[in-house]
Structure formats: structure tokens, C-alpha cells
């Protein structure tokens, strides 16, 4: 059934008792043309685009828990394409363009809110770097503006723009088309759309082994039986190393915990997304009224999906440094996700050294905003057996070749990206 105000009104008349299932819960078949491991946004998007763009609908998405229950349900919902290096700029801009029409594409309101993403600068060095990045964006045809401190003060009155701040704000780089998207809606929207095209979404099905014959994928072993396939795509960022290990592959990835939190809901007080490099912090206000915020990693390997107090305290301290009037608001929920931190801070969307095996992972902080493009390009790579120009640079081999894509310049230290 198509979602619209009309179907909503029609169903209201029958007490909403006739809405159909958003997605089926089928039993896994013995074989599929393609299997995607990971029922988060990236995996579900991959399956959707396999069906939609490549006519491959005999696809299973295998999810060890409940779809969208991993990082897709745990991020701070920011979308943007304000990167510096060409491969990232082109990739994330492709993703942003997909975000712009995704609600209509999926017939599911993902609430893409182009409210802007503002990166504050606090030092001349920050300013130079931000200007370089903004200029690169503009030369690539991506929207970017530099705002003065006074313009920022007028737009965001809650921000401390005074010269007496510990790290005074000098200005900021704004991407007007950046903003937020409702994260749960992305998982559910892609799931419903993929299911409608014949994709089987198998939840509570954990992959326990990958079967390889003659150097090529033959299938997977799972907690719900063995399933055969010749095309296997891994979309489990956070757990990429564990899946790759099943295929005998080591990755340039450390899994780290990233915490985030929300405040209690309050009336509108912040109309854009604000981030700061000096205090390592980012914040926006959800449509429910909650302030959603996050900052640095905890800085140790973890698969626990939770962190410890010091990291959270630093995030909140960063928040209050920028927004001193938020001190009396209360933190309502805090949680953690598992981030695939790579050795250059950029992702891996590529074929792996086993025939028919691909992955999309290594997303570091960039995973949520990458969802549509990651799915689209991963599907392309799976279907065609070759990368698309937009993901051609994001190979596993780039590290051995010296072609790192390192936005921060931090080098082979995953936690530093």
C-alpha cells in the first residue's frame, strides 16, 4: 500500500487495522543470486539498489539481530558532503543528492532536513583549513559559504561567540544543503522498498562462516542454516574485521566505541547542525525537540556498544563551552555504537581478494551520511564485478599502494581519524 496523506486518512477511518506489513519475515531459501550480510542502512540499501538498478532481486539480507539495530539506529543523524579530498567530496555529494529525493524514491518519509551544517573555526590555522575545504567544495560544484562571527552570532544566539570564550569563534564554514535525516526511517524505508521488490530480509540470522571454493564465494553458514550464493557483500561496519576474517582476510581497521547522547525534549532552540574542531563536538536538535550530540571516540578498541563516563563528560563540556545556556538541560539517554576506524579515515567499498566477495565498511564517522551512496555503489560493484568511478578509489589495496585518502592527515592511527 502506498503511503500518503490519503492512505493515512482512509486508514484512519478503519482504525488503522488494514495497514500491511512493512516487510515480510521469510524463511531463508537454500540459495540466492546475491547475499548481503548486514541489515543496517548500508546493507538494506545495497539490496534495494541491486533489485532496482540491476534487476537482481533474488537477494537475501542477513541480519544477526533486528534490522537497523546497529549503527543505523545509533548515530547522530547528520548528513553532509563537506569533505576536502576529491574522492570523498564526489562520493558524499552523490550521497547527498540521493538523500534529497530519497523519501519520494522509497515512499517513506526519511525527513531529510536541509537545515545546514556549520563547522566553527577557532584559530587561524583552522580557518585556513576550512577555507581550503570550502573552496574545494565550491570548485567541485558543491554548496559552501563562509560565515563571519557576527553572522553566526545573529543566526545562532545560543552560541557563545564572545572573545572571552576559551576557544573564541572566528567564523565558520557552512554547507546549506547539509542537515539531518531520521535514522530509523532510513533502515525501515529501505527495508520496505527492498522487500517490495522481492528481497528477503532475514533477521535473527547470524553469519558464522563463509564458504569459499577455488578462491571464490560458495555460500555462508548461519545460525539458521547454510545458504549458497556466488555474490556476497559484507555491510557490517563495526564488525567488518570479524566477517572478513571468516574469509581469511585482515583489514586495516580497528573497531572503536563512539558514544552519543540526547537531551530531554525542549522547544526549538537550535535551527542548524553545529560542529567544532576545537572542542571536538557536534550537535543538532531533533524534530522531537531533543538535542542530539556527540564528540570524540572513547579511544580504545571495543565491540561493547557502550562507553565510559570520561568521554561523555568531555562531550558535554564541549557542548557547554559553545552553548553556556544549555547547562541546566538534562541528558536523557546515552549510548554507544561500534565504528570501523580505518588507517586513513576513509571507507572501503570494494572487491575483496576472494572471487565474488565485496564489502562496504570502514566508515569511521562518515557512515550514516554515506548510506544511500554506499548502498548504490556497493550494489554496482556486486552486480558488475567492478567498482564504479565514484568508489574506484576506496579499495583495500590503496594502503599497499600508498593511495591513502586521509582527510585529517593523521596517518595509520585509526583512533585519530
Amino acid at each position: 500500500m502506498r503511503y500518503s496523506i490519503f492512505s493515512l486518512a482512509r486508514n484512519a477511518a478503519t482504525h488503522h487495522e488494514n495497514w500491511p506489513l512493512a516487510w515480510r519475515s521469510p524463511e531463508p531459501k537454500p540459495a540466492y543470486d546475491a547475499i548481503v550480510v548486514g541489515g543496517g542502512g548500508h546493507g538494506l540499501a545495497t539490496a534495494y539498489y541491486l533489485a532496482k538498478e540491476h534487476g537482481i532481486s533474488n537477494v537475501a539480507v542477513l541480519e544477526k539481530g533486528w534490522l537497523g539495530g546497529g549503527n543505523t539506529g545509533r548515530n547522530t543523524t547528520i548528513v553532509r558532503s563537506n569533505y576536502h579530498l576529491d574522492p570523498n567530496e564526489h562520493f558524499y555529494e552523490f550521497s547527498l543528492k540521493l538523500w534529497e529525493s530519497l523519501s519520494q524514491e522509497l515512499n517513506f518519509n526519511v525527513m531529510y532536513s536541509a537545515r545546514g551544517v556549520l563547522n566553527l573555526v577557532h584559530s587561524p590555522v583552522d580557518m585556513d583549513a576550512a577555507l581550503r575545504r570550502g573552496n574545494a567544495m565550491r570548485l567541485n560544484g558543491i554548496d559552501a559559504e563562509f560565515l563571519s562571527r557576527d553572522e553566526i552570532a545573529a543566526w545562532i544566539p545560543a552560541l557563545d561567540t564572545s572573545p572571552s570564550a576559551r576557544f573564541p569563534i572566528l567564523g565558520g564554514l557552512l554547507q546549506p544543503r547539509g542537515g539531518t535525516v531520521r535514522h530509523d526511517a532510513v533502515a525501515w524505508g529501505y527495508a520496505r522498498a527492498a522487500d517490495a521488490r522481492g528481497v528477503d530480509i532475514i533477521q535473527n540470522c547470524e553469519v558464522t562462516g563463509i564458504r569459499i571454493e577455488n578462491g571464490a564465494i560458495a555460500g555462508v553458514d548461519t545460525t539458521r542454516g547454510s545458504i549458497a550464493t556466488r555474490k556476497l557483500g559484507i555491510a557490517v561496519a563495526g564488525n567488518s574485521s570479524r566477517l572478513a576474517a571468516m574469509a581469511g582476510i585482515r583489514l586495516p581497521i580497528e573497531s572503536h566505541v563512539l558514544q552519543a547522547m540526547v537531551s530531554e525534549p525542549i522547544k526549538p532552540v537550535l535551527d542548524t547542525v553545529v560542529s567544532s574542531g576545537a572542542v571536538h563536538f557536534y550537535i543538532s536538535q531533533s524534530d522531537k525537540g531533543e538535542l542530539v550530540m556527540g564528540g570524540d571516540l572513547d579511544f580504545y578498541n571495543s565491540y561493547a556498544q557502550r562507553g565510559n563516563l570520561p568521554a561523555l563528560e568531555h562531550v558535554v563540556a564541549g557542548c557547554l563551552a559553545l552553548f553556556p545556556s544549555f547547562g541546566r538541560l538534562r541528558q536523557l539517554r546515552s549510548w554507544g555504537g561500534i565504528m570501523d576506524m580505518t588507517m586513513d579515515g576513509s571507507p572501503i567499498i570494494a572487491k575483496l581478494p576472494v572471487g565474488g566477495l565485496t564489502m562496504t565498511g570502514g566508515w569511521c564517522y562518515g557512515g550514516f551520511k554515506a548510506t544511500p551512496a554506499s548502498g548504490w555503489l556497493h550494489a554496482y560493484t556486486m552486480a558488475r564485478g567492478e567498482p564504479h568511478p565514484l568508489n574506484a578509489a576506496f579499495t583495500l589495496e590503496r594502503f599497499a599502494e600508498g593511495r591513502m585518502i586521509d582527510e585529517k592527515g593523521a596517518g595509520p592511527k585509526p583512533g585519530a581519524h
Partner: protein
Amino acid sequence: MLLIPCPWCGARNQIEFTYGGDATLKRPPPDAPQEAWYEFVYLRDNPCGPHDELWLHSAGCRRWFKVRRDTRTHDILASARPDQALPGGPT
């Protein structure tokens, strides 16, 4: 909050320490083939479970040491000086 057992100072709060990553890596000799250096610098086991890792007691004695910590539960299982082995492991 992690309670990290510095072999010299005893168990201290995590805020006194800096993380150093995988402790099982072996620096290849300078003339080793590229492949060995690539693996050393870039590839990681990244286990879900017991992980031998390096920590620096940066706000204390400023010594580096090894800890075995379970990355799934954050349980701390053992610690050792750099020249000692963690239980059942190589030095």
C-alpha cells in the same frame, strides 16, 4: 570506567592512561619486504574478545605496558611489562 592495572603503579582510573593499540605487532627489520611492512603498519586482527593492547601511563609513571582486555565486555584480564609475556602469549 576502566580500571587499568599498571604493572608499576597498580590499578588506576583510565583517565590517567593513553591507548596504544594492538600489542602483538612485531616491527619488521628495516630491510624486510614491503609486504611485511604493509602488514605491520596497516593490518589488524581487531578481535572481538580478548585483545592484547598497549597502554601508556601518561599521567603517572609514563611507562608503556601491555594489557589483555576483552573488547566485548571490557573485562581486564591481565597486564604485563613490555618485556614480559601476557599469560599464554608471546613476549
